Each structure stands twice: as C-alpha cells, then as structure tokens.
C-alpha cells in the first residue's frame, strides 16, 4: 500500500517536473527574439551561401589577376577595372547591353500586356491559341535558343525559306539574321526574345486582369466610355503595379541574359554584337582572364543595384490599387 502510494507520488512528481520542463521550453520559444532568430537563421544561411558568398567572391576576384589555368591570385587592385575602362569593346558592349535591356523590357511589357488583353477576351479558337502562345515560355531557354538558331540560319533556315516562298526576298540575297550587320542581329535577337519572354508579362498581367470586376466596365459602358477610355481609366490603374514589377524583373533579367543570346547566335559568331554577360564569358573562358571577367560581372551587379534602388524609390510598385 505504502510503496504504491510512494510510487504514485513519484509519478506525480516526475509529471510535474516534465510539465515544468515543457513549460519552460515553451516560454523559451515564445520569446520574440529567440523565435525570430530560429526562424530567420536558416533562410539567412541559405542566402549567404547561395547569393552573398558568390557576390563577395566575385568582387574579391575582380581585384585580382587570375589565370584560369593557374591557381595563383595576384592582387592588382582596380587594375582590371582600369583596363576595362580603356577598352572600346567594353563600352561597345555596355552600349549594346543598354539598348538590349531597354528595348526588350519595354517590348516585353507592351507585347505581354497586349497578349494578356487578347487572352482576356472571348473569341473562337481561344482554347487552341492560348497554349500555343504560352508554349515558347515553357521551353527551356537553351532549347528555345537552339530552335531559334535553326530557324534563323542564313542559307536553309525556316525564316529565310518562308520569305523566299512568299516572294519577299530571292534566294540570292537571303537575310543574314545573326551574321551580318550588328543592328540586324540586335533586332532579330530582340524579336526572338519577345517571342518567348513577353509571355512572362502576359501571364502576370492576365492574372491581374481576371481580378477586375466586370461591373466596373459595365458602369463605364453605361457612362458611354469608349474602349480606350475603359482601358485608360479602369484596366491601366489596375495593372499599373504589375507592369512596374514586370518592367523591373524583365529589366534585371534581360540585362543579365546570357543563355538565349549565346545559344541563338551559336556562340556569337559575329564579334560586332556583344553584350556584357557574353563579354564576361569570353574574357573568362576564351582568354582565361578570370579576374577581369569578374570585374565585368561586378560592374553589371553595381549598375543593376543602382538602377533597382532608383526604380523602387520613384515607381513605388508596392502601392496597390485599393479594392474594398
């Protein structure tokens, strides 16, 4: 009897201990600072490893002279940058890069919005046309670039064959899409880029368009608003912020774009059209000057950071349309 009572007391006591332990653990966890620490640290570590470390590594590397074939890093300070600033090719590439990034981003946004507006209408064959339009975006860039390369090949590419068949050009003077004049190459590349990446904008804008109540348009129609006035006064205010975001995202991504350009132009056979990422690649992997290559990459990073900050300060894309 007595022992069992003692056992009972002990069980109760150990339960109490267990309880207080759990309580103190809960108390420990419910401390704001500790909870914040526990939840933020994993993400911060991932960010540091995947994003911050390579940036730091790249910036440090840009201050050294590194030969790809030898492990030695020779500190040269801003030497690589001074060298770059003195190169005509660097400034040319920079110029092409700006034209490229600006024209693709603006056209992506305009064309993407147009596609979204089209998809938002009801028309016949919509169910067939929609996947056809979305398809290029679903294909990986490198694969897409490969298709483009075949289509644009000068002698037997699909594009030139179509133009010959429709009588617009003769087989004697086929268009050198990527191998002739740099601005032709640029225009072709911009066109190809829009074929694929306008769809990105279209998807985001289309999603937003779906959220605009029909009643607003009907109210406007009752007031006698034309299609253009409906777009200007209802659609545009609703999608404005999406457009700000897409311009920013496409701007950043297009500025840094390498894969599509590299593959579509078959490793950039003409030297006249070079964008900065391609230039960085060439310096690094063809001329084996890794330090200088990193200086180009760091320049890209700095330029984009500055543009991004200015953009966020002026456009304020976080201000949403208020919908009650």
């Amino acid at each position, binding site marked *: 009897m007595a022992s069992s009572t003692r056992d009972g007391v002990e069980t109760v006591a150990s339960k109490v201990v267990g309880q207080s332990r759990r309580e103190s653990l809960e108390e420990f966890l419910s401390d704001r600072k500790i909870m914040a620490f526990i939840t933020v640290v994993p993400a911060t570590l991932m960010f540091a490893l995947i994003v911050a470390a390579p940036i730091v590594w790249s910036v440090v590397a840009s201050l050294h002279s590194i030969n790809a074939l030898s492990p030695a890093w020779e500190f040269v300070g801003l030497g690589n940058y001074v060298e770059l600033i003195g190169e005509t090719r660097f400034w040319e590439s920079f110029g092409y890069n700006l034209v490229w990034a600006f024209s693709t981003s603006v056209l992506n946004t305009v064309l993407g919005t147009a596609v979204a507006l089209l998809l938002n209408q009801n028309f016949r064959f919509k169910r067939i046309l929609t996947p056809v339009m979305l398809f290029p975006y679903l294909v990986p860039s490198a694969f897409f670039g490969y298709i483009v390369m075949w289509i644009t090949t000068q002698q037997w590419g699909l594009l030139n064959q179509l133009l010959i068949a429709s009588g617009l050009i003769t087989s004697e003077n086929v268009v050198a899409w990527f191998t002739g004049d740099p601005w032709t190459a640029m225009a072709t590349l911009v066109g190809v880029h829009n074929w694929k990446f306008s769809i990105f904008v279209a998807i985001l804008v289309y999603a937003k368009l779906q959220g605009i109540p029909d009643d*607003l348009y009907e*109210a406007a*129609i*009752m*007031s006698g608003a034309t299609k253009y006035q409906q777009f200007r*006064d209802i659609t545009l*205010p609703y999608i404005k912020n999406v457009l700000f975001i897409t311009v920013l995202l496409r701007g950043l991504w297009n500025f840094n774009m390498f894969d599509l350009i590299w593959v579509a132009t078959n490793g950039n056979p003409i030297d006249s059209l070079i964008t900065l990422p391609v230039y960085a690649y060439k310096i690094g992997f063809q001329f084996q000057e890794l330090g200088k290559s990193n200086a180009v990459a760091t320049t890209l990073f700095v330029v984009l950071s500055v543009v991004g900050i200015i953009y966020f300060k002026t456009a304020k894309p976080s201000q949403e349309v*208020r919908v009650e």
Partner: protein
Amino acid sequence: MAHLEIDNLEKVFDTPDGEEVAVDGVSFEAEDGEFVTLVGPSGCGKTTTLRCIAGLETPTSGHILLGGREVTELPPNKRDISLMFQSIALYPHMTVRENIAYPLKVDGVSKADRTEPAAEAARTMQIEEMLDKMPGDLSGGQQQRAALARTVVQDPGVFLMDEPLSDLDAKLKAETRKEIQRIHEELGTPVVYVTHDQEEAMTMSDSIAVMNDGQIEQFGSPNEIFYRPNNLFVGQFIGQHGMNVVDAEVVDAGQGVSVAVDDYRPELRIEEKPRRLSTGPVKLGFRPENTVLETGDEHGAGIPGTVRLIETFGEEAVVTVDVGRPESLLAVIDSNRPLSKGAKVQVRIDRNAHIFDSETGDVLAHAEQSQKQPA
C-alpha cells in the same frame, strides 16, 4: 423624365447545353415618375430584362421605347438611362468626386464644368464631406450613396437599379431604401428596380411585376398583387409569410359557392361570380395572417392539426401546424397566447382566401369568408 415601354421582350442565350430562354415575352410600361419593381426568385429573368433596358444585353426580339423613341438597338449611353449595380461598382482607384464626375468626364465635359454637378449630386446624397476620399474609406451606406450620386449626376430619363440593397445589412437596407424613395420623389424620374425581396418591392413600388421563368406572372399595384394574386406562384411569393395552400373541393359552384377541405367548410363570400368555377378539386390559398388557430376539437370547425414549431418575433409568433398533409400550414398569432408545441388545434380561415385551379394554378375566385362565424 420619360415614359418607358417594354414590348414583348425576349432574350435567348446560347449555352453549351443549347438555348436558354431568359426572358420570354415580357411587356410592361412605366409611366412618367413611376416606381416599377421587377421581383421574382433568382433566375427568373428580372436582371436580364433590366440589362436589356440598360443596353448591356441585346434582346433577341421585342422593343424598348423610351419617351416614344425606339432605343432597342442603341448603345447604353445613347439611351438616356443610368444603372446602379448590385455591387455598387465604384472605381476603387478614383476619389468619390472623380467617381461621381466620371460619366461627365467621358461625355467630354471639362474639368471645371463637372465640379459643380458632381458636388450638387453629392449634396443631394448628403456625402459632400466625402468627396475627396477614396471609396475604400467610405462605409457601406456611404458607398451606396456615392454610387447613387453617380447615377443622379447623369440626369437620366430613367433610373435602373439592379438589387442595390441586397448586400447591405437590415438596418442600412431600410435607411438606403428611404433614401432611394426620397431621391425618386425629389427628381420625379421613373425608376425600374430589380429585387428578389418581395418586402422591398411591396414597400417601395407604385407598380410591381412579379416574374417567374422569364415571364411576368402579374403586373399591378402592391395592393392588387397582395390581395388579388393572379395565380398560386404570385400568392406564395408575395407576402411576408407566403401563403398556405391546401387541396380542397368545390362542392357547390352555384349561387352560394361552397368549398370543402375534408370536413371543414369555410363559408366563403365571392364578390364577383367567377365563370370558370365548377365543382371538383381546387387549391385553396389563404395567408398565415388570415389564419386562426382554435383549440376546440369540434368536428368540422377547421382543419385539425398539431403544433410543430412556434417562432416568436416580438408581438407576433408564427406557428407551424402539421395537418397530416405534405405541406404544413402557418398561422400568425399573438405571441402572448399560451400555446405549446404538440398542442392539438383547428386551423380556420379568417377573412380572405383564394381559389386556384388545381392543375394550372391560375386563380378562379377571390373570396372573403362570410361574416357569419360558425358557432
């Protein structure tokens, strides 16, 4: 201000499952200054009718005349009408002022010239202080007023309103209802109002069109609709508690019409001698407000039944009585009356009743119970 005439309006929608007739030969007129309500259950075609009048839908056939002018094919803004939406439909990114002035803006009125009418409309709706706020900052009732101001500013020939009160709570509903009536009286513009709420229809309208299945079942004043329903549907749809309907039999269609519900024979006094009435089965309809419950068990004094449910609303209580038929009967009684669940009662008709054709549901006779009460 204008006279609105709807003539044999028909609207057929093409759906994947075939054609769907939404509006099936609707005709009615709204006199100058009249408040006409289209009321009916959802899917009865009332909103489609309104959208055809607004010009947001093109009717399959039929005509819409406004002030004698054919407007059936005209775009909405050429019709001299304005529409208030169920969802209010204020532009969330514009201030209240811009919202109200928007119809003027698209009309090409200069910014300076549209300030005054917009402020005037806001003053009429008593939301002047709200002009520079965004719709999201307004309360539900203020949003409703702003939406109303936007229709007022257009100075239309006809106001169309598509269930503008259905999203409001009961108190706000009653307030806004008064507001709409005030505006209607002040401006004298005819209103075509759509609702599924028979109470709204009864309290606001000069005329009511009760719709069902794309057709108007009855068009008339609230009194006519309530006291002289054309058919079973109107009888049951209108009225706070609907209408009790029981199977009955006309045993004498001669001079003194006599109707029997089993052994209960209410003595009914028929004002006009109906031509179509003959002996045989009919449906007898009477309102819960005109229904009396007696506690005696005298044979034939009423329809015998058992109290199943008592719902009390302040002074009144609605009693549901099982009478051994598929449909139970309702009676409105004084809530102070001591009556409990399970009590045996006799359901008697007090005052008005209506005799309907048992197959078509069309009314055969409106009857009053004779003053002579059974002992």
